[in-house]
């Protein structure tokens, strides 16, 4: 957090201490036979290489081009995504929230950091940090302003606080000027933030 920049030297030494403590814990867990380091490596590799916002982007692009899929997705997100073999497997109770010209959806977890990992990968730091978690439910337009996002004044804004094991994925509006685009082309326009509800999908030709 920026207000802590003056503590930089302190943070740095604390980081080293943390690193030592983490290594010690892994050593103990390994020696006691609780974890297999190769399994830990594989978990990390999955999040670094395979599981990320591109998974959600494919789902969104398909919903933009296939009305039957979109309807199925809005009815039961987990079930509909389960029919797409090429996308990362998804757990139960994924709820897909459609943004429309009259309603903008935005997702937060005020109590911790619940996030649709299988669709978006690991959450960014800001999603897990106090400024977003505290303000999203009270001042959603102020939070959106921090992302340079402005909504029409009378648009309904709906904030979904992820307080249980349901997970939420925003289906952003399809940008104009993309008629006839393929799913692959459209997926390139779908940003992570647009699927959290703190951004829009990219507009063709606009600087990103």
């Amino acid at each position, binding site marked *: *957090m*920026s207000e*802590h920049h003056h503590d930089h030297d302190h943070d740095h030494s604390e980081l080293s201490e*943390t*690193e030592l403590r983490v*290594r010690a*814990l892994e*050593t103990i*867990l390994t020696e*006691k*036979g*609780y*974890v*297999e380091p*190769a*399994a*830990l*490596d594989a*978990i990390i590799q*999955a*999040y670094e290489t395979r599981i*990320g916002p591109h998974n959600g982007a494919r789902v969104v692009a398909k919903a933009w081009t296939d009305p039957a899929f979109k309807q199925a997705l809005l009815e039961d997100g987990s079930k509909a995504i389960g029919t797409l073999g090429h996308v*990362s*497997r*998804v*757990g*139960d*109770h994924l*709820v897909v929230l459609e943004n429309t010209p009259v309603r903008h959806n935005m997702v*937060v977890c*005020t*109590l*911790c*950091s619940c996030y649709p990992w299988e669709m978006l*990968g690991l959450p*960014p*730091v*800001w999603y*897990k*940090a*106090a*400024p977003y978690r*505290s303000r*999203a*439910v*009270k001042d959603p*337009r102020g*939070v959106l302003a*921090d992302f340079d996002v402005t909504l029409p*004044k*009378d648009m*309904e804004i*709906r*904030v*979904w606080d992820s*307080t*249980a*094991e*349901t997970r939420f994925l925003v289906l952003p509006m399809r940008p104009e000027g993309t008629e006839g685009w393929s799913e692959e082309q459209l997926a390139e326009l779908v940003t992570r*933030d647009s699927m959290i509800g703190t951004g829009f999908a990219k507009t063709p030709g606009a600087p990103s």
Partner: protein
Amino acid sequence: MNGVHDMGGMDGFGKVEAEPNEPVFHAEWESRVLAMVRAMGAAGAFNIDTSRFYRETIPPHVYLSSSYYKKWFLGLEEMLIEKGYLTRDEVAAGHAMQPAKALKHGKLALADVERTMVRGKFARPAPALAKFNIGDRVRAKNIHPATHTRLPRYVRGHVGVIELNHGCHVFPDSAAMELGENPQWLYTVVFEGSDLWGADGDPTSKVSIDAFEPYLDPA
């Protein structure tokens, strides 16, 4: 518990600052912490609700000044000590000194990693009929348990409307304390922003939580 983790509606934390091109991890140790939590959870050393409760019990000043993965580390270490998987002496020494405690599901093997990449299942058979229907008005109870709960403070005492019924799920308030799964109906309940925040709220905003039936009274 009424801890600092329950942040909804608090002021003073400043602007949301997104980091452009943020890496998946900011240091290698963060990735090891994530993987240890996932592996020990899959091995049955703890359930997800217990792990959340241990993060919530980190002292407030430490919670607020620690990074996300630092909190995960602190919660993990303390939980494993308290559940008898390690001792404080072992942590101080940095090596195993005591025999291992059996893991409920056994060590997570490399071959089983793929299975853990999908979230666990939390739906359970219903022990009773649902008390509420879609469209019902409900009041979030004014409860303040000192233990784990998923009812945020900012909705307590407020009236909302049932919008979705997600079926019966493991009840975190019970599971976190290792008192069994105690399945309960889970609903999405929608509140008007102006009801939650009064004149300081945005009249175009609505906020929903997912609330377990024991959190709700008819209104």
